[in-house]
């Protein structure tokens, strides 16, 4: 991987240096101006994709941040005489602060995803435009920057703007590449696929979204600052028009919003094709053509140009390499392709260390005390208490709607209890966000598997390993070990959609194990499996316990409950009605009545 990173850095640097030499050798001013526009759109589109491409939070408000930067530079230079170059970082800061303020409110509201987030950011653009228009920032007539001194870095007057645009574009693409391969980027991709699961697997979703939003807006603000000098005359109508949000969305989608280089390719294609329609009536036509292109791309190439080309390229290369040596190494392993068969032993071995009972073995590992949870008028949990010792398997049973899944959701932090506490080795979990609970060693599976749809099986598990507190460098090797442990060694490179139900259930389990939990919550992992698969799953669960992990499992398959559980806890209508050794608890008259009806109780 680091080899590739070096190649990308070298490539970006040589393009940057090469292009920066152009003004010195006397590039005609017209080309400087045209290339500046290309850089301008590369920076804007790429910055947009850092939040909207990676995390899938489509913003129609990029114009607001671009405009905030533009007006920051315009006001500071024209009204306060501040040197132009000094205003650029300030333009970025103002926009980033604006995004942080908006994000701090908006990202707390779960329902504001998808199209509602898009509409909200569009509304924010209109509000900002109204404020700028009606206050001293603009006041109506617009701001002239013709008298502002622009330092000459090269001989030609347009050269400075050109160089600034180039620098920002190169830095932005570099930033997007680094973010895409960082923890932050992996977390953002997971948020794109399933935000709730990402949080439960340990991704600090709120912080990540806010960072990406601020970074994206800050770059847009700086692009706005440079643009203010380029146009020389800033008006509300032009600045906050629909052009910026329309073009950045189109460029990113055309090129591939989830690929670091996608927006760049999209920006080059669109800016160049728009150039063909400049001036007079054909500008109207140009806009219509761009809009039509956007519609066609969304309908026909939903992934964008760059990912499609990259897929073709990989397919072609793998066909070639098969022809050469008839052996395919899983490309997902990258340069760690030397994955040895003893990976499983290593991964499983280290789990034993991290999950072995620590300190006082007498104290409960997980202790739920008097948990209450209501949804509107429905009381889902009533004073539920439950303890789990290290290495213990507790079966949680009860009729449908008795509160089993709610209890798991409360322990894993998806819901906050109305009253009561959850202690893990003495520390209270009940007021912590889900990603911290995951990092403290509580891991869960979902009854209906919820893998991250755009990540391979290996990456799904590696993500859980990284955000569960593991080492990012060895995460993929460990993940491969866990996939082998759950019998999925052959499916490393598969996308979740290619797996059958049985395999997805085991992927869910591998993902939970990769976080090296001290407590694992299994929500009906066996449902829908055939008897032979249940037998192998029971063996797997016994193996997990042998490593010292405590298991709380919700199950309807009675054979598994009786075979696995050290203890069972029976829930009915949110209350614990029995607990104890499996066969005794199941013979409890109360339990029999709940399960089979009154007649059988006697």
């Amino acid at each position, binding site marked *: 991987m680091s080899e590739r990173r070096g190649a990308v850095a070298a490539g970006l640097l040589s393009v940057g240096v090469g292009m920066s030499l152009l003004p010195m050798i006397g590039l005609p001013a017209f080309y400087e101006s045209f290339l500046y526009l290309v850089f301008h759109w590369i920076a804007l589109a790429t910055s947009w994709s850092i939040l909207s491409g990676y995390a899938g939070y489509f913003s129609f408000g990029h114009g607001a941040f671009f405009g905030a930067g533009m007006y920051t530079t315009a006001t500071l230079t024209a009204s306060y005489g501040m040197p132009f170059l000094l205003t650029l970082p300030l333009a970025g800061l103002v926009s980033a602060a604006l995004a942080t303020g908006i994000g701090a409110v908006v990202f707390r509201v779960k329902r*504001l995803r998808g199209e*509602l987030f898009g509409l909200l950011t569009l509304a924010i653009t209109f509000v900002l435009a109204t404020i700028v228009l009606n206050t001293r920032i603009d006041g109506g007539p617009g701001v002239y920057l013709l008298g502002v001194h622009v330092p000459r870095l090269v001989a030609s007057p347009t050269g400075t703007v050109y160089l600034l645009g180039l620098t920002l574009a190169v830095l932005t693409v570099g930033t997007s590449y680094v973010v895409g391969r960082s923890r932050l980027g992996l977390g953002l991709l997971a948020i794109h696929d399933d935000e709730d699961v990402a949080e439960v697997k340990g991704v600090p979703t709120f912080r990540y979204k806010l960072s990406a939003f601020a970074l994206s807006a800050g770059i847009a603000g700086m692009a706005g600052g440079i643009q203010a000098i380029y146009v020389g005359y800033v008006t509300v109508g032009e600045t906050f028009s*629909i052009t910026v949000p329309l073009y950045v969305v189109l460029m990113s989608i055309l090129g591939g919003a989830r690929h670091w280089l996608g927006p760049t390719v999209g920006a080059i294609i669109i800016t160049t094709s728009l150039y063909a329609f400049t001036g007079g009536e054909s500008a109207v036509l140009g806009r219509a053509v761009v809009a039509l292109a956007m519609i066609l791309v969304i309908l026909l190439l939903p992934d964008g140009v760059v990912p499609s080309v990259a897929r073709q390229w990989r397919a072609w290369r793998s066909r070639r390499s098969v022809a050469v040596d008839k052996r395919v190494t899983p490309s997902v392993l990258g340069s760690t392709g030397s994955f040895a068969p003893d990976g499983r032993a290593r991964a499983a071995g280290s789990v034993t260390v991290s999950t072995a009972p620590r300190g006082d073995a007498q104290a409960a590992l997980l202790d739920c005390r008097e948990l209450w949870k209501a949804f509107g008028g429905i009381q889902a949990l009533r004073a539920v208490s439950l303890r789990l010792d290290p290495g213990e398997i507790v079966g949680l049973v009860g009729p449908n709607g008795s509160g089993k899944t709610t209890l798991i959701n409360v322990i894993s932090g998806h819901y906050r209890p109305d009253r009561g506490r959850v202690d893990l080795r003495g520390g209270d979990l009940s007021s912590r966000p889900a990603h911290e609970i995951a990092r403290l060693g509580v891991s869960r599976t979902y009854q209906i598997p919820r893998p991250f749809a755009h990540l391979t099986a290996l990456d799904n598990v590696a993500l859980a390993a990284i955000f569960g507190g593991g080492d990012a460098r060895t995460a993929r090797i460990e993940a491969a070990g866990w996939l082998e442990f759950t019998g999925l060694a052959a499916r490393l490179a598969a996308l979740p959609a290619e797996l059958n139900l049985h395999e997805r259930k085991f992927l869910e389990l591998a993902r939970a194990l990769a976080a090296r939990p001290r407590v694992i919550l299994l929500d009906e992992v066996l449902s829908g499996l055939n008897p032979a698969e249940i037998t192998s799953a029971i063996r797997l669960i016994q193996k997990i316990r042998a490593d010292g992990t405590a298991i709380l499992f919700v199950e309807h398959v009675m054979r598994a409950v009786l075979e696995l559980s050290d203890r069972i806890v029976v829930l009915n209508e949110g209350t614990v009605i029995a607990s104890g050794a499996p066969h005794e608890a199941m013979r409890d008259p109360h339990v029999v009545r709940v399960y089979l009806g009154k007649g059988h109780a006697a």
Partner: protein
Amino acid sequence: MPSLTLLGQSVVSGLLAGGLYGLLALGLSLSWGLLRLVNLGHFALAFLGAYLTYQLGTAFRLAPWFSALLIVPVFFGLGVGLHVVFVRFRVTEFTSLLVTFGITVILESVIQWFWTADFRRYETPYGTSSTRIGPLFVPTLDFLAWLTAAALALATWAWLRFTYVGKALRASAEDPEIAVAFGVNHRAQAFVVSGVSAAYAGVAGVYIALISTLAPSQIWAWLGVVFAVVIIGGLANPIGALLAGILIGVSESLTMAVATPAWAPLVSFSVLILLLVARPARA
């Protein structure tokens, strides 16, 4: 502090402006609530209807209600056609926003191509007529628009509430798969909804031509306000759309009376933002 008459007059004009907001919101609310498609193109369609009314009225001296008779069926067909594309390419709630964003830009360009970017005003003999109630003036056309909005909102409500088609549509919006299992042909009814929604845009367009000044860029001016109305009114809730339209209309015109007109856009968008953030469960 403005006089009581001025305040009263601004309440009346806000009330009436709310009718047009509600009329535009009605079609949007139907397709978003029942088809899970967010149709930004609704505004462009309305303006296309407005320009057609203008063209037929000025060049061919065609009375606006006659234009409406032509526009409504044609737009119904356009709505059905749009939905054919959506179904063919399996457009989701989110991509519908992007696709119709593109459609809006195309229609804006088409309008600008034919009618230029200049402001146009459709002058009619009854354009300035009004009725006097005490010290307050009620403009006839605005009042007609309001009556039309109220009548359509009521009719749509009754359609959804009492007919088989309406019930089937509401069931499909709740859970398409289950509805299909009970024999509801969602696809056939979806075309009807899309057509009705576009026809409503056409009706709104006729009134936009009669009441306001036309310019291609005005398409975007309505967008934020009407979306605020749709979300406040509740999706697929015709009466809610009308009431929310009135609420926004009145608060906007009061802002214009108390502060300056330039601040008016701030009201609707702020209400929308506050509502999205504070009460997101409605949408």
